[in-house]
């Protein structure tokens, strides 16, 4: 059974967002890192870049495939995880902690409304 923390919201494209904490962080789920396998590279945007909800903000790459990363909510990038570049395997080892990807400033809380609850996300990945 995949680890799905209760304090996060999820996109059907397997990103998580810590909407209720400050700063708001974005990463990929345990299920996503398992499906990708050994992560070898992550391409992330420069701080200050603005993205709309659903836009591609980067690429996560494993031995098997390269996958686009999608913004779970509109916002501006405040910071990217500096530890990821030298050690992308952090995402495999700790996808909800040390393996976070972005810190963002969310534009409108209404963007969060249609994200998946932990229960709903669990159902999605079980299908």
């Amino acid at each position, binding site marked *: 059974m995949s680890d799905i923390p209760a304090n996060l919201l999820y996109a059907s494209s397997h990103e998580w967002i810590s909407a209720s904490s400050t700063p708001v962080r974005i990463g990929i789920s345990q299920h996503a890192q398992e499906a990708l*396998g*050994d992560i*070898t590279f992550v391409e992330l945007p420069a701080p200050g870049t603005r993205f709309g909800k659903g836009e591609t903000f980067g690429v996560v*790459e494993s*031995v*098997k495939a*390269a996958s686009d990363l999608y913004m779970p909510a509109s916002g501006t990038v405040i910071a990217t995880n500096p530890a990821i570049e030298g050690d992308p395997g952090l995402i495999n080892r700790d996808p909800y902690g040390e393996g976070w990807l972005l810190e963002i400033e969310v534009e409108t809380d209404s963007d969060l409304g249609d994200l998946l609850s932990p229960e709903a996300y669990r159902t999605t990945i079980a299908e």
Partner: protein
Amino acid sequence: MENLKQTPLLPLQSGGRTVPFAGWEMPVSFDGILEEHRRVRQSAGLFDVSHMGEFSVRGPEAEKYLNHLLPNQVGGLPVGNALYSPMCLPSGGTIDDLIVYRTGELEFLVVVNAGNRAKDFAWMSEQTAGYDLALQDVSDNWALLALQGPAAPHWLQNTTGWQGKVPQARFSLTPARFGNEQGWISRTGYTGEDGFELFVPIAQAVEFASRLLEARPDPNSPGWIGLGARDSLRLEAGYPLYGHELSEDISPLEAGLGWTVPRNKNTDYIGRQALEAQRQAGIPRKVKYFVLSDRRIARPGCGIFADGRSVGQVLSGSMSPILEKPIGSLIVDSGVDFSSLEVDIRGTKLPISIQKPPLHKSS
């Protein structure tokens, strides 16, 4: 997964994440592709390759037939030896790459890629006309295991209760007893390491593989290696994978397999005219292997550029955990300056370093 075939050894590989591959449900990875790859280079690993096809060719004219079917020199291959060869169309394009094992004076076993089994058998059947021999698809009679890595000889000898002669020379083959049945062990493999391929009669497969697993050098590791590391190991070693570096559109000469197409063969074979013409006129394209200094992996289909001009494309891409750099293969027009190639990865052009394989031994 519906309608996918399973090898008899899949139940022993329960820790693996499986994917569909050439019509089979096969494990892609057990404890991580990079970890499994390293284990084979440093110690040893066990591969279930029972999905591959095995054809038996027997009869007074089996040797003559195979020597005409294949560019490499099967004629005169001593009993107990194996030979790698492409199988070509009259156009010189590659139908498959395979290994021929001479199991007797008048008996050969041919091992082909799983994805090409039906196509190969149809082609090979057509070519039997006029030859005194029997060609049979015996794939379902055999489980095939590959035990690969520097610790493979030790691992095999240590296998509980199994006593047998182990082939010593590379590309040699010895008969072996598995339970009360006869099989074969060859000193072959596709990882670039020392090791064995074990042809185990299907009824003995689970018992023998269980014993092998128990004898593994590191009991904390799964022992098994999945398709992911199988691909990265062969790519690092510079071995072609059918559908990538070899195809009906890529000749063995273009693929850099000139050594499998001997110039001095004294009999005709299918594809000879086209291959010799290619050699004479100059081989139009070349498959090369490369290393990147970035962390991005160049995937199949990525464009290759020389001075901004499109000159080819990537055929395979992976990550070498030995070099800790992305590696791959490409096909480019001959005559380009190999020292100044670039690959386009998602809009970014990165310099490519063409290297002579094995890539993990390059500087």
